[in-house]
């Protein structure tokens, strides 16, 4: 496993909920990342975020790690959940709330 892959594995396994995104939750740099943050904020769960614009290795590495070509990417309990389209679809179906509850994710502080 490459260094980048082990760094990514550490991040996804070390946080119950983590979003790989462009920009930060306060200043998303892309509409899709912004939408993903809006969903997480609406769910009211505690989450970590990684700004891929600050780290070229992770920006490229996460795409092969997840076999997913775009950012944002959501991980819950070490499992890849999807990008912003899947997040929206699951949110609208009530499935994302259910996933967070089942994963016993902490509410946002």
């Amino acid at each position, binding site marked *: 496993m490459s260094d980048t892959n082990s760094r990514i594995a550490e991040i996804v396994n070390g946080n119950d909920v983590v979003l790989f995104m462009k920009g930060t939750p306060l200043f998303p740099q892309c509409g899709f990342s912004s939408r993903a943050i809006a969903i997480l904020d609406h769910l009211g769960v505690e989450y970590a975020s990684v700004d891929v614009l600050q780290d070229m290795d992770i920006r490229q590495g996460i795409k092969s790690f997840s076999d*997913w*070509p*775009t950012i944002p990417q959501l991980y819950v309990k070490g499992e890849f*959940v*999807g*990008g912003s*389209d*899947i997040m929206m679809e699951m949110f609208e179906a009530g499935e994302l709330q259910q996933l967070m509850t089942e994963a016993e994710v902490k509410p946002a502080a």
Partner: protein
Amino acid sequence: MGMAADDIAAMIRAALPDAEVEITDLAGDGDHYAAHVVSAAFAGKSRVAQHQLVYKALGGRMGGELHALQLTTAVPN
């Protein structure tokens, strides 16, 4: 520069011949699209796996040449 809606639909149909593909040009700029793809190939697959099939059909263009494609997938009724 982005891709034409017809090219996107053609690439998806080439990989998933039964697919019904509906492309909407969201901003009218040939760069921001929404695609709805219905195919029996999605049956029994997770959402992630369904989207991965479409991304593979687009042969690496997704996230590069094709920046903004909102994707929804479904199995035929």
